[in-house]
């Protein structure tokens, strides 16, 4: 059986020649993301702002959205939205956070239940009071910041601090643009989205670490090679792996997107974007950044020896 060799020869793409365009593109993406986040804002799900979400299925005929909307509007529960959800029988009803604290949220669900009658079955009800929402936002932001710091600290510990900074900047870039994607397209931002973003951070750093590892190795091997050339060589040597891995992960995420159902949609979109942008940023941000924050050469000898011992012992 002859396998299909993806890149038979080590390619020689001049990444460093493209890196300025990459920086400019990323800067643009970042500015757009931050701008969208600040001006339009995120379309927060009820996890974060509180409110009511009801997934209902009409038991007989396909759901009559107009009729249901009318019935719900008559309750005067503030801003509400109805949308089809998967099959024509399914409807997703959202109510904005009800004024009057935590107890008021529950009341509105009962009102909707009474208004829609027995022809509609409630498949899922989520009610989040304002208090919990605020806490979840705080925990989410905290988790993301801590994750970035912890990852940078680990990279610093395993490499040199210059690598840590590079890894943190490129991971931040990925996180910011993923959040930006959700702001620009007004996709619902909820708890699972947040989980996806943290996973994106983990994946993106994974990719960066593989490349940094190679840069460090090449630095050791070719002590006098020009730095630009050295980064190019490292990127090209790992390019085959970079592309194959992004493809396997993307395959898994794509099947989640297609078959995983509505609940996982936001998660899958964030993951898919994150995997692509994470790969891009490893190639065009993380690696070229090393050229500017130039790690010391020759200083790695001791650490490299340590790493070698670890590898020996385990294998």
């Amino acid at each position, binding site marked *: 059986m002859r396998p299909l060799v993806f890149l038979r020869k080590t390619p020689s793409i001049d990444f460093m020649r493209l890196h300025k365009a990459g920086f400019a593109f990323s800067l643009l993406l970042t500015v757009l993301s931050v701008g969208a986040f600040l001006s339009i804002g995120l379309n927060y799900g009820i996890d974060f702002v509180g409110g009511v979400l009801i997934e209902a299925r009409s038991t007989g005929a396909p759901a009559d959205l107009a009729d249901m909307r009318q019935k719900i509007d008559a309750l005067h529960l503030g801003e509400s939205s109805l949308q089809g959800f998967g099959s024509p029988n399914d409807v997703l009803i959202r109510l904005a956070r009800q004024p009057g604290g935590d107890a008021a949220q529950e009341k509105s669900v*009962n009102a909707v239940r009474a208004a829609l009658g027995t022809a509609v079955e409630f498949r899922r009800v989520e009610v*989040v*009071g304002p208090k919990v929402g605020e806490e979840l936002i705080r925990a989410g932001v905290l988790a993301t910041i801590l994750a970035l710091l912890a990852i940078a600290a680990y990279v610093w510990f395993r490499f040199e601090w210059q690598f840590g900074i590079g890894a943190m900047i490129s991971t931040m870039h990925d996180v910011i643009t993923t959040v930006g994607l959700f702001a620009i397209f007004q996709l619902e931002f909820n708890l*699972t989205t947040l989980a996806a973003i943290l996973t994106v951070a983990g994946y993106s750093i994974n990719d960066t670490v*593989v490349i940094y590892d190679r840069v460090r190795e090449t630095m050791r091997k070719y002590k006098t090679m020009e730095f630009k050339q050295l980064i190019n060589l490292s990127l090209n040597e790992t390019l085959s792996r970079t592309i194959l891995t992004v493809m396997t992960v993307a395959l898994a995420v794509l099947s*989640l997107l297609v078959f*995983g159902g509505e609940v996982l949609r936001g998660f899958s979109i964030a993951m898919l974007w994150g995997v692509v942008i994470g790969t891009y940023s490893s190639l065009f941000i993380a690696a070229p950044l090393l050229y500017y924050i130039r790690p010391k050469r020759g200083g790695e000898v001791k650490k490299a020896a340590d790493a070698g011992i670890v590898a*020996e012992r385990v294998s």
Partner: protein
Amino acid sequence: MLHFQTWKIAIIVLVCAFGVIFSVPNLIPASTLEALPGFLPKRQVSLGLDLRGGSHLLLEVDFGAALKERLNNVIDSARTALRNARIGYTGLNVEGDKVVLALRDFDQIKGQGRVEEVEKLFRDLDPDLVPTIGSDGQVTLRYSDIAMTARRKAAVDQSIEIIRRRVDETGTKEPTIQRQGEDRILVQLPGIDNPEHVKQLLGRTAKMTFQLVDTSVLPEEAQRGRLPPGDEILPAESDARRPGLPQNYVVRKRVMVSGDTLVDAQPTFQNNEPVVSFKFDSVGGRRFGDATKENVGKPFAIVLDNKVISAPVIREPILGGSGIISGSFTAQSATDLALLLRAGALPAPLIILEERTVGPDLGADSIKAGTTACIVGVVLVIIFMVVFYGLFGIFADIALFFNMAIMIGCLTLLGATLTLPGIAGIALTMGMAVDANVLIYERIREEMRSGRSMLSSLDAGFKRAFGTILDSHVTTLVAGALLYELGSGPVKGFAVTLSIGVLTSLFSAILVTRLQIVSWLHRFRPKIIPL
């Protein structure tokens, strides 16, 4: 690299076998498992509420409301105590978490040296109360911090106990009821048919009292401001079936008997109407007997959560320690009231902060969607690996199979809860797990390209890729750990599968793959590596 010690091989094979043995029960329907002999593992991974259906409720004990009620009682007893001691005061009121008042002739009290006495008077109202008397005669009464903390804790503990009793009475199987943080309670009710009903039961304080009705004044007059001292106006339970009854009642604040002396309550029928029969303990029975003896011919109110259920007239002293509450019950509401009275009253109202309820058929749909996505993802990855790495791709796929088995086996044994995001985590890890194989194989190819011999290429490939694999896995673990720490519910499930998956893939992608390659080398003694 080429040599595996026997004990290492044994461990690898054992771990893989364990993975398979403990994950297999998840593929077999529970009914078939029952029939199998006892020595076989039967444990299945426990499904989260989003997959099996059920209700997740986060409740908060509204200690503030309970405190307010308590302070109102303090006001009442302070009023009586001050009157009896003939001490003048103004502005007796609850202000936030304290009671305030101003002593009228404070200079005189000071002159007579009675300050200590006044302080003692306040302390006697409630030993936990800390009175402070300012030089201008301004008094504040508040509970000490220690007393507050103790009461708060007691209120939450007691609430948990009462919730457990109420939930058990509804027949819910395997409920989880646990304290969360300082004053929150997490209730998880898997697979219940009617979450609304349970929620309704949990949301009621169910504080019952028997109080005399004050017939000297009409409710309308009392509302206009002629409320006799020591009385309160309570609304009647909304009652559509008996329109002739009053909307409000004027009742004595003093409680004849309270519901905590009840030992039993049962729904039953009287004149074809659903009613609730109850029984007092000996203390309550005596008190109830005395009170009814003294007040024959007068009406008394049965008050539940500050609403009057009914106000029957006492025809004769009720000495047996038991009685019947009639009101406008339906069979269901009589059953509910009896249940609530049996389980006891909550020390403070509960507020529902968060509710997530999933119907059982949606849960089943989610399992189906998640499983399909997982299988499709894995199949794609398997094909991908064979296409790009041939025979070595098959080795990687076999490792992937064991990876999945070990992962599910771990989840099952650890009793971790599988949620829909958790299934997504499995799919994702499978995509990421082969990354280790990709790293190793690419490295081997590179080494071969640089002209090394077959064996040393293999050796270098595994050795050099290891550091990289370790680094890249640790970073994912960091993200997973943070998610677990800070996420909630379903997201926690994702963090668990992601983290376990990272660990198992470290094992399978490196050791299981290498073991296969080594065995293949020994058996077929190939001249070239098909990479």
